[in-house]
């Protein structure tokens, strides 16, 4: 017990007085041996349990969408200090922290775009500014990995800042890319319009509607739409020239429409959030590069 004087840890051979002291009784020796075994088992168990955290990282089937400015996944996990300062500054609380079921990714920020996408309401990518370790960064150090198709050709134009002297976002790389994964479900592809609350009355996501309020994002359910041809992903996309509506004419002379994702897409996920179809026809592929 700890309230008794500590005995020397090293076992002493019985009968051989060490340093003028008495020899250890066999019972003491046995208890020291037991303690050693117990300690070794404990060290092994705790280290093994900690290493188990690698399994969810290695086995992650669906990659997470990370906040803007995130390093490549391995660099991101190693540099993130799990403090959640990015969570605290986000005006639309798009950023959440992962739980222990993500193993080494516990406490690491991610965005569930369908629930709440990053709409750049903060104007300046505040989460990057808040990050103390450079996990989220405006400019990546040259020594860190950059994949082809991830850097943006030009600084993305923020539609909300179109008339400002500095209308672009300080963002050098995309976090993912939007893809029309279910074209058959897309209302525009079907030639349909959309009326009412996208995502229904129970949806809690928010979005900045510049024409209503430049500084305060509003609940999406408070902003019903009335479109003859559904083009919510095109109009609500916060980035200039990231999604356009492509028009084509069929052989029978009918006009066809299809949302087209372009190279300026940063992967913020607003299109996925706003898409009225369930599940969304257009989604962000996290950390996927642009491929023409």
């Amino acid at each position: 017990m700890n309230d008794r004087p500590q005995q020397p840890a090293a076992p002493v051979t019985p009968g051989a007085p060490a340093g003028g002291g008495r020899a250890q009784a066999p019972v003491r020796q046995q208890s020291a041996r037991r303690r050693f075994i117990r300690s070794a088992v404990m060290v092994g168990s705790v280290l093994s349990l900690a290493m188990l955290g690698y399994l969810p990282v290695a086995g992650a089937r669906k990659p997470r969408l990370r906040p803007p400015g995130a390093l490549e996944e391995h660099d991101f996990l190693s540099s993130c200090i799990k403090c959640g300062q990015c969570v605290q500054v986000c005006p639309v609380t798009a950023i959440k922290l992962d739980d222990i079921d993500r193993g080494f990714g516990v406490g690491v920020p991610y965005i569930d775009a369908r629930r709440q996408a990053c709409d750049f309401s903060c104007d300046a990518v505040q989460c990057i500014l808040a990050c103390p370790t450079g996990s989220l960064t405006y400019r990546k150090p040259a020594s860190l990995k950059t994949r082809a198709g991830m850097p943006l050709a030009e600084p993305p134009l923020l539609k909300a800042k179109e008339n400002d002297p500095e209308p672009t976002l300080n963002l050098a790389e995309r976090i993912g890319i939007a893809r029309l994964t279910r074209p058959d479900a897309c209302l525009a592809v079907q030639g349909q319009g959309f009326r009412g609350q996208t995502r229904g009355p129970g949806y809690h996501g928010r979005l900045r509607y510049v024409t209503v309020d430049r500084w305060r994002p509003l609940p999406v359910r408070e902003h019903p739409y009335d479109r003859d041809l559904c083009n919510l992903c095109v109009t609500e996309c916060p980035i200039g020239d990231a999604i356009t509506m492509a028009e084509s004419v069929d052989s029978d002379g009918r006009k066809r429409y299809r949302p087209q994702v372009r190279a300026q897409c940063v992967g913020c996920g607003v299109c996925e959030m706003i898409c009225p179809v369930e599940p969304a026809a257009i989604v962000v592929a996290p950390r996927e590069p642009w491929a023409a």
Partner: protein
Amino acid sequence: MSGLERLRVMFGAAPRKPLVITPEARQVHGLKRMTKAEFEAMKEHARAHKLVNHQWRNRRWLVLIVVNLLFTLSFWLDIQMLEGALTASRFVGFHLIDLNSALQVMLAHKHIIVNLFIGTATVFVLWVLLGGRSFCSWVCPYHLLAEWFEWLHLQLVARKRVSDHEFHRGTRTVFWIAFSLLALISGYTIFETISPTGILSRALIYGPSLALAWVLLLLVFELVYSRRAWCRYVCPIGLTYGMVGALSPLRVEYRLEQCFHEGDCRKVCLVPHVLDVVIKGRAAALKTPLGPDCTRCGLCIDVCPSGALVFDVKGLQKLL
């Protein structure tokens, strides 16, 4: 005890009897030599006059709760005073970064940005001034929970429902090295995955998580198997701050002349090896600062009936 010897004890070695005892201390030890009856009488006298005092514990709990509440309220009420969690935060704009978390990130990522360096340096200076492991007892939320479970554990032990199992204290040093190497080699901050300090701090700020089940498991382990096992034998955060505490002028000082050698302080202490000096005949000098592993929690000061343990700032007496 020399500084080197105190470090050796912190890393897990058993305390040794001092080789040299100053003449003054030897004189005091000599004066305390008496018959068993006399000693018992003296002990009874001291106990009779003992005041139940929780002054330092109450102050400490208050500070610990206020600090953690400040994190929570900064986010909930958006008062922006202390943003972030215990691993890294900003106090009215100044970066603060936990030393062990910083170490893990630096080893795993191998790239240090300016803010990370500034935050780490600030916290280093802060805890050199405040006593190193005082982080554990005055700030760490797991410490508080573990203290309550320790009380329950001692109740069960007293009723012979469970018994305490000690581990070798060197395991903490093994963990410190293992987690550092793992971060360096794997590039993942592996300790953060299981750190109850980080998990609890984030849960208090960002809401409950599944990870709390792990914290509960640790507490139950401490309750039924081994007293304060995480803090004593595992937590590398404690050892990191212990090393900082080795440089700190703020420590608890032992005063031989006031001591009745009853050993109550060793019974309440999280790290009783730093109180080896209070055993009869062990003190090498009239005044001895406790080792760097001391968490400066003040429980020993509260429990000592004769004022033999006091908070002390090295060099302050000379300065005044």
